[in-house]
């Protein structure tokens, strides 16, 4: 239920409390006023039903908007990460390509060197063989010939070692090249995949933005409609309030007349302040105030709402007690508030208990402060919320100012 809806229902409840229950029997003049009041009340109810419905739709729109914005944000974050990932992949591909180029160049150079070295070695072997056949060196110096043959072996071994070294280097480079090519292929595939993902994200984001735009349009429309309805309701409430004042005046006059000028004047009205209530007030249950009294700005939905009461979160099935001594004036279901119980404390002081599941007292039963009057409903989360409203002279006051409640 949205805040606006709760405000509307609070106003309705106040009207019901003030008019429908306290004064069940009306005089003929009062019947005109009551008829007017009923008529107005009917109209107000219709408007408020429309408001409620519009508020619900707006709430839904807000929720959708929030969800959509959330999705858009998530998609944007994903897209950003995706782009960042793509950039990294691109850089990696670029770096791999550079390394690939260098490796290819190195392999070509090594192949050329290998070919040259092999050619040199073969030619050296030919020269060595020819030299041996011809008797390299001075034939009259066998020691010199032996030395030259030994050095030829050293030379050929050196060349062969060189060839082997180049071969090994080339093989290593070719392995490195293969690895790089594989890495490049893998990275390219990954890039392609990520690009597809990115495209998907982009399309989803676009779709979500379009959806968001639709939602925003719907929200604006609803807000406009709600604003209009509220204006009307405000006007209607002023009318109802006027009528209430008239009823009260009439009642006062009636009581004054019924007492017949007794000296015993009606005791002065009880003070219209809960602080001066006999016995004081106590918290209806142990819990935490989750919705405060008064004008609140909802940042999620970016609306300003007026709370006439507070919502207290407590464990599911918790017992609800009367905040003070009084009489159960109403027990029943009220649209938007669930099971509602109203306790009259006298002097125009009422305490309203909404969203209860069970009642343990009847209408007209006297309760004391702390008397268990009902229980909260069960909830899968283990937590339930009690709606508490205090009215003094028809005006809602902040319950936290009269009752020590945990915030």
């Amino acid at each position: 239920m949205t805040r606006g809806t709760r405000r509307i229902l609070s106003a309705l409840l106040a009207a019901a409390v003030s008019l429908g229950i306290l004064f069940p029997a009306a005089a003929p003049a009062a019947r005109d006023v009551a008829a007017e009041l009923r008529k107005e009340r009917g109209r107000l109810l219709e408007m408020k039903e429309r408001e409620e419905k519009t508020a619900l739709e707006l709430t839904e729109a807000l929720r959708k908007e929030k969800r959509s914005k959330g999705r858009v944000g998530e998609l944007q974050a994903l897209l950003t990460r995706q782009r960042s990932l793509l950039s990294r992949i691109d850089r990696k591909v670029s770096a791999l390509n550079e390394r690939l180029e260098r490796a290819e160049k190195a392999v070509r150079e090594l192949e050329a060197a290998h070919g040259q070295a092999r050619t040199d070695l073969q030619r050296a072997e030919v020269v060595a063989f020819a030299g041996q056949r011809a008797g390299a060196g001075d034939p009259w110096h066998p020691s010199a010939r032996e030395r030259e043959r030994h050095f030829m072996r050293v030379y050929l071994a050196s060349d062969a070692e060189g060839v082997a070294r180049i071969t090994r280097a080339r093989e290593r480079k070719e392995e490195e090249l293969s690895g790089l090519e594989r890495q490049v292929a893998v990275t390219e595939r990954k890039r392609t995949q990520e690009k597809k993902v990115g495209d998907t994200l982009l399309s989803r984001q676009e779709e979500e933005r379009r959806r968001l735009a639709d939602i925003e349009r719907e929200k604006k429309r609803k807000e406009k409609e709600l604003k209009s309805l509220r204006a009307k309701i405000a006007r209607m409430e002023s009318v109802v309030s006027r009528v209430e004042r008239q009823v009260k005046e009439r009642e006062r006059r009636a009581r004054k007349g019924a007492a017949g000028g007794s000296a015993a004047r009606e005791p002065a009205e009880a003070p219209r302040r809960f602080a001066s209530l006999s016995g004081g007030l106590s918290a209806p249950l142990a819990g935490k105030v989750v919705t405060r009294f008064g004008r609140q700005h909802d940042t999620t939905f970016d609306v300003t709402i007026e709370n006439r009461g507070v919502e207290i979160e407590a464990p599911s099935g918790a017992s609800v007690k009367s905040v003070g001594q009084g009489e159960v004036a109403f027990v029943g279901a009220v649209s938007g508030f669930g099971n509602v119980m109203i306790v009259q404390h006298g002097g125009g002081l009422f305490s309203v208990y909404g969203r209860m599941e069970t009642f343990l007292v009847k209408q007209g039963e006297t309760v004391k402060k702390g008397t268990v009057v009902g229980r909260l409903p069960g909830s899968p989360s283990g937590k339930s919320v009690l709606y508490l409203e205090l009215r003094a002279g028809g005006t809602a006051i902040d319950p936290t100012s009269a009752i020590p409640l945990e915030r």
Partner: protein
Amino acid sequence: MSEQPSLWWIDWRLSRGSLVRETIGRFLFFCLLGFALLTLLLSGGGRRFLADRYAVTAVLRAGVPSAEAEGLARKVAALPPVRSAGYRDPEVAWKEFLQAYPGLDPLRGAGGNPMPGYIEIRIRPDRLTGGDVNLVVAALRSVSHVEQVLAGEEWLPRLLRAARLASRVCWGIFGAFLAGFFLVGRLQERARAVALAGDFAFLAERGVPAGRLAFFRAAGAAVSGFLLAAAGSAVGGEALFLSLRTFPFLEGVIGPPSDLLLPRTVAAVALFCCGAALLSAAASLLGWRAARSGRK
């Protein structure tokens, strides 16, 4: 005048002409033989030739500093069988190698010089034997700087055998010539004794004992043989000296001219002269005996 007649050079006094011819012939023969003897002595029977062509190569490990290599070469040169030991650095080795295999010159390019430095050891001609070579090789192999020693172990024994054979052949030929000299001399002595038999008989009748006659004849032959050998050796030596000076390439085969005046050379020549004297005396005696007994 009843004194014993002097029998010195009696043949010269009795038969001058034929003796002059014989003397000239012997002198020329000793010139040749002296030349041959000095050649054999200087060349060591081919050992000098072999020693100039044989060398032990100590291939050094890569990275041995030149100073250390040269120090090692000096130490090797101090070994008794070693005539000379010279260090060749890698660059020199590379140049020598390219000279032996000219086709390799353009192949190396920027490959660098793979050749190590080495020490070339020359053995003294008179110490060129398997045992001395093994001594040098063992000494070299014990040095850590030396990677490998090339001493021609496969072909050196054959070469030494060939050298020994050549030396023996040369000395054998020389000995054969000496033997020939002896035989010819004996024949000549016999012929002369036969020719002078009348004179000798005359002298024998006049109280000159045959033995004394033979002795003095032999002594004269010995002296003449010694002198002729000495003179022939001197002339042969001079000829060899001039040959070595004129044809320097012969020094590699025979040896330097200065070796002609070495004490061992002179001693050998003196020994040869003594041998020639003995052979001459022996030829004289045997020829005298053959003449007196009527043998040929």
